[in-house]
């Protein structure tokens, strides 16, 4: 049973950066913008987050540095794709390449340094309950924050007028413009929210997951987050399920290797993507009409005035 508890704890920790980044990307895509630069924003968030925490000695300062770094990088993306109406796919890919290079530059002096990782919650009595205690009441703050964020995003999208406007902009930017909504401004905020979440997701890695920074430590998690948004068919609830599922696959793959299961690890690593493809097919077969993806996703909008 110790092993089960350990696996669940590891799954939660592995899933959290995916959930954070995907939640941000979900808002970006719901506004109709496809930002493929999640991986780049995450890795810069990781470098800046670690740097901030190492210099200040505070995990919270580190997390804030990660958030700001991700948001600033996404601002470049917003200026290019919204202001200058550049192709979103090309810009997003370029952003990832830029982010990987930039993180190496920023993080070079922090490689080999170590910080005290984010503390775990400890509520006497509750945390000590066997099996569930540590899982429910003994996690680090980021895990609780990520779940709260998903609930907040769900509430925003479906219960507030601002959320309705955001969904409308992602469904049909021409109509939204005709009704007088500032399409580009709304999209810029959505992109920056996505950037901030990706930055935080990146910062989680050196602040809580492993207490040090190495270049390229996001290791493709940004791409998984992108696939996750599609997997969740742009719905926050399914995002949680998807993130934990993908996290579980990652962890089980490690254990499977340890147990000597004869499945190539490459195949296991490919599972999340395979799952995404299957889910996409199932969704499009099950639904009778309308579109699952935001209808304006990835299209450039230039208002006429």
């Amino acid at each position: 049973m110790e092993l089960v508890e350990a696996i669940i704890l590891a799954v939660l920790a592995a899933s959290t950066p995916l959930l954070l980044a995907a939640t941000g990307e979900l808002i970006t895509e719901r506004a109709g913008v496809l930002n493929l630069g999640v991986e780049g924003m995450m890795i810069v968030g990781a470098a800046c987050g670690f740097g901030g925490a190492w210099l200040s000695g505070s995990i919270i300062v580190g997390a804030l540095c990660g958030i700001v770094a991700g948001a600033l990088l996404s601002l470049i993306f917003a200026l290019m794709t919204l202001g200058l109406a550049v192709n979103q796919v090309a810009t997003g890919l370029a952003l990832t390449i830029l982010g990987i290079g930039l993180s190496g530059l920023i993080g070079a002096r922090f490689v080999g340094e170590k910080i005290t990782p984010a503390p775990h919650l400890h509520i006497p009595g509750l945390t000590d309950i066997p099996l569930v205690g540590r899982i429910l009441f003994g996690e680090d703050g980021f895990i609780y924050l990520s779940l709260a964020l998903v609930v907040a995003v769900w509430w925003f999208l479906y219960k507030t007028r601002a959320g309705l406007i955001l969904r409308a902009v992602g469904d049909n930017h021409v109509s939204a413009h005709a009704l007088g909504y500032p399409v580009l401004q709304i999209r810029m905020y959505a992109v920056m929210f996505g950037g901030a979440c990706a930055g935080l997701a990146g910062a989680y890695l050196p602040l809580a997951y492993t207490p040090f920074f190495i270049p390229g430590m996001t290791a493709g998690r940004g791409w998984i987050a992108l696939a996750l948004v599609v997997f969740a068919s742009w719905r926050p609830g399914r995002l949680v399920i998807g993130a934990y599922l993908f996290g579980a696959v990652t962890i089980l793959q490690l254990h499977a290797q340890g147990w000597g299961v004869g499945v190539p690890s490459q195949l296991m690593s490919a599972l999340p993507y395979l799952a995404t493809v299957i889910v996409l097919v199932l969704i499009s077969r099950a639904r009778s009409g309308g579109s699952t993806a935001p209808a304006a996703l990835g299209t450039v909008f230039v208002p006429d005035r």
Partner: protein
Amino acid sequence: MGGTPLLQTVGLTKRYGTFLANDAIDIEIWPQQIHALLGENGAGKSTLVKTIYGLVQPSEGDMLWQGEKMVLSGPSEARSRGIGMVFQHFSLFDNLTVAENVALGLDGRESFKDMSARLEEVSNVYGLPLDPKREVWQLSVGERQRIEIVRALMQNPKFLILDEPTAVLTPQEADQLFVVLDRLKAEGRAILYISHKLDEVKRLCDTATILRGGKKISTCNPKAETASSLARMMVGSEIKEVKAAANRQTTVPRLVVNDLGLEPDDPHGVRLQHISFELKGGEILGIAGVAGNGQDELFAALSGERLAQDPGTVVIDGHAAGHLSITRRRKLGAAFVPEERLGHGTAPRMRLSENALLTGHAASGMVQHGFVNTAATLSTVDKATKAFDVRKAKRDPEAASLSGGNLQKFIVGREILRNPVVLVVSQPTWGVDAGAAAVIRQALLDLAASGAAVLVTSQDLDELAEITDRIAVMFHGHLSAPIPTSEASREKLGLLMGGASLDQKNLDQKEAAHAAGA
């Protein structure tokens, strides 16, 4: 007339670069009046109403609202003053519900629950029933327009702008709309009504302003004008009368469709059921119907974009062709002009000569031993240009650079120059100005006179009345039996377009026979 007008524009001008979309327009809108705005495509109607609705900022000139100067920062300010708008291309969100769509058009001062209650109330009061929980993609075009109108009415507007509201409605749906408009007028509201349909304007409107080339030509009382005098003001010259050749003769059946049925390939599609007709050489058959009743699917089945299981369901010039590809059908002498000019009829970013090749490669000697004969493709462009008066900036421009009317003339010309024995054409003059429309209709008549069979799908009943010999109506994937055009009154067609059967008993028997056979 005493007092001040509700809205007055003084020298309203909008420039895009050097292009004058609106040139010093003066217009007065009075309460309790329906004011028509007439003009061809590109005359500046849309720019004018967008300016009045605050979507476009004027370059010069003023707007006076109840006698006071008004500068609009955007549509929400226009709405707060009491200006409402129903868009031509609906400003709806397909994946949101009716209630959410309505909420987005309001300023959000009331709770969603109160808004939903008021939505129900307004839609009941005006007889415009709506289910607030449905998503828009599930609704018919008429229902979508109802959302737009209810949304505008919920702001309790003093002034309502409608941009071609009847373009997509059946005659009966249009009549229902006119009842609502008369009621709004009686309530003291002003209405600005944009339309191409002059009979409608004469019947409904108290005042008409005519725009041409961005300038105001005149303001008149449409009831005192004739449809042709209004058309003359819109176009600026007499429109050439379209004339059918007197001695046109029908020959052998060129296009025969036998009990064609086809499952839709996308969730929004319509299932074609038991479609049969026979079209002889020298004959023009019209297919009327509200958009989305299977016309697109029928076009796809005839052109070979979608294949039928049974080869015998589509017979082109005596050859069973239901299973043949587009190219094979072209080789049998068929030609096709789809509804959408850019993207379906032509590849927008390719030159005209390349677009000529795209349909001409099958049977026009443009490809020799696998190589493209550029001279042949260019000569097709030149011939089409000359025969159909295609106006363009250079010899061989990109398709997207042509205006809608000129591109349509090119596409129709490209197919007719191949001397087809069967021409299937969808919406031949949709969104085309009156001059180009006359050229295209004449070309279709001439083609039929030369012995070809022509099938025209159109939503414009006047067009069908003008050029066809017989008319059939599509409804929910069924095609009615064709009736001679001389006997096809608007009322009769309207009933068919709304799904009524002229001979209900007959249809029931047919259905029963099919059920028994299945």
